[in-house]
């Protein structure tokens, strides 16, 4: 079994967003970069499959030198090898999907795991686009995964519940929180990772899909007001306000 895990480097969820001088990108000053949390579930799942039934796990990220941190971390956690696709990794999902598809083709992967979305870009599109470009099955927002003989069975989150998706391998499967509890890197893993190298490949040229032409902060919310009094009085003035001012009810 050969598994590819795609990892995206993203700003930490606690990042205060500032718009850069170009007016269309994130000001990188003071940004702490992390592996997108959903990708961590994907990597953990790959390592668990490896431990359960044996697999070769390859971690891949698109970007420049900075994303090597993401790959080193993946190696420390248990990936066997890592690939840095040199290209614009923060650009639109269609572009990234094409870069990864060009790398993946003819490599004989049985399974490609990714996060259901890269936080920040919030596109939730790379996985299904990659599946389509490779002409393979997909299952997204997965909270449970079973691998059979050339098949998979996955539980995916939908409105008001979940559904079971079955399909053929190879497949692109995107992870949701709840799939597993990612481990921390062990000292042994971190030491072993130091001996592993990161393969660097120039990403293939792509057809651009969509681009961000302007980035803006949300408008300030109008100032609110505090409701005073005893709990019963607060409760009744809140409901009155929601009814009369906000017209929610």
């Amino acid at each position, binding site marked *: 079994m050969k598994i590819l895990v795609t990892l995206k480097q993203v*700003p930490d*969820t*606690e*990042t*205060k967003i500032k718009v850069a001088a170009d007016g269309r990108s994130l000001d990188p000053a003071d940004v702490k970069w992390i592996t997108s949390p959903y990708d961590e579930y994907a990597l953990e799942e790959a390592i668990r499959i490896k431990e359960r039934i044996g697999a070769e796990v390859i971690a891949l990220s698109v970007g420049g030198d900075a994303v090597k941190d993401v790959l080193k971390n993946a190696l420390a956690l248990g990936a066997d090898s890592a690939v840095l696709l040199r290209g614009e990794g923060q650009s*639109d999902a*269609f572009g990234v999907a094409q870069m990864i598809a060009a790398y993946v083709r003819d490599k004989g992967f049985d399974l490609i795991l990714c996060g259901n979305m890269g*936080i*920040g870009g*919030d*596109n*939730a*599109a790379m996985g*299904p*686009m990659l*599946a*389509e470009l490779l002409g393979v*099955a*997909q299952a*997204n927002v997965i*909270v449970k995964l079973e691998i059979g003989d050339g098949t998979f069975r996955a539980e995916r*989150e*939908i*409105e*008001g*519940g*979940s*559904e*079971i*998706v*079955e399909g*053929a391998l190879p*497949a692109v499967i995107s992870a949701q*929180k*709840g799939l597993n509890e990612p481990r921390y890197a062990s000292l042994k893993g971190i030491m072993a990772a130091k001996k592993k190298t990161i393969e660097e490949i120039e990403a293939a040229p792509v057809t*651009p*899909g*969509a*681009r*961000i*032409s302007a*980035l*803006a902060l*949300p408008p300030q*919310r109008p100032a*609110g007001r*505090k*409701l005073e009094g005893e*709990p*019963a009085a*607060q*409760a*009744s003035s*809140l*409901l009155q306000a*929601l*009814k009369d001012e*906000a017209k*929610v*009810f």
Partner: protein
Amino acid sequence: MILVFCELKEGQLRKPSAEALSEGRRLADASGKKLGALFAGASCTGATEAAKYGADLILTAEAPTLASYSSDAYATVLADAVKAKGATVLMAAATAEGKDVIPRAAARLGAGYASDVTGLSMVDGKLQAVRPVYAGKAFATTTFATPVQVATTRPNVFPAAEKPGPGIVESLPAPTGDFKSMVKEILAKASGKVDLSEANIIVSGGRGMKDGANFKILEELADAIGGVVGASRAAVDAGWGLPHSMQVGQTGKVVSPTLYIACGISGAIQHIAGMSGSKFIVAINKDPEAPIFKLASYGIVGDLFEVVPELTKAAKALGIGSR
């Protein structure tokens, strides 16, 4: 043509689909295009409802093979319909199914895709989108480089305005053959309530709830005012037995209800990112300095264990839930 992929639930047009259709009608009018509504399934009875929201054409791909959702089969239906009709814009609501099938169809069409958009316009005959990024901490204006443009609309943002259209029904061929994957079973949650992402009213609890069992008082309030219950990451990760599907925030659901009542939630940036799109925010917290109050339309500094039951009582007395 602007083509909108629509979903039916028990023979009825889903509300997020009606919203997408209605926005499609507005864009079609603005750019002198026709509006098509596209349905797929074993039966598309109910598809005619799309005429209410201005569909010129109602396209149905009906076949027993489409009874269960399949990503690749449905993507084929969508991409083939776009090609057959020469559509330049493909839209759907950003539902579980929409977010699964639409990017796949976009890739097949070689089209750029903007997901979960909160604003759309036609500029020089091409779609332009505004969408929340960093879970709503910023908004990105997105332009397309491709002849076909694809977008999903965030539920609860666009109004589902009725505007009757001709709604001429035309059936499409359905794909046959081996599908790569297929839904085998649907496991519904017992509650049968609407999903957080579609809810109009959300009552949410954080670390201040102290225990999972205490969420009962939020359930009671939600039941009284017709809402559903959510939770902060702190609450979900606290080991209180709350499912991840309840989590609102950057690594949970991003929601935009009319009313969001935050109980015992301090307002970590992670959480605010997921709910700041709510029209009205109520914060109930013991700590008057909690950052959540900066966002709140109405703030109550107090003990949620006293205030929430009073709210439930008052809501029942006012007969709010019964409307």
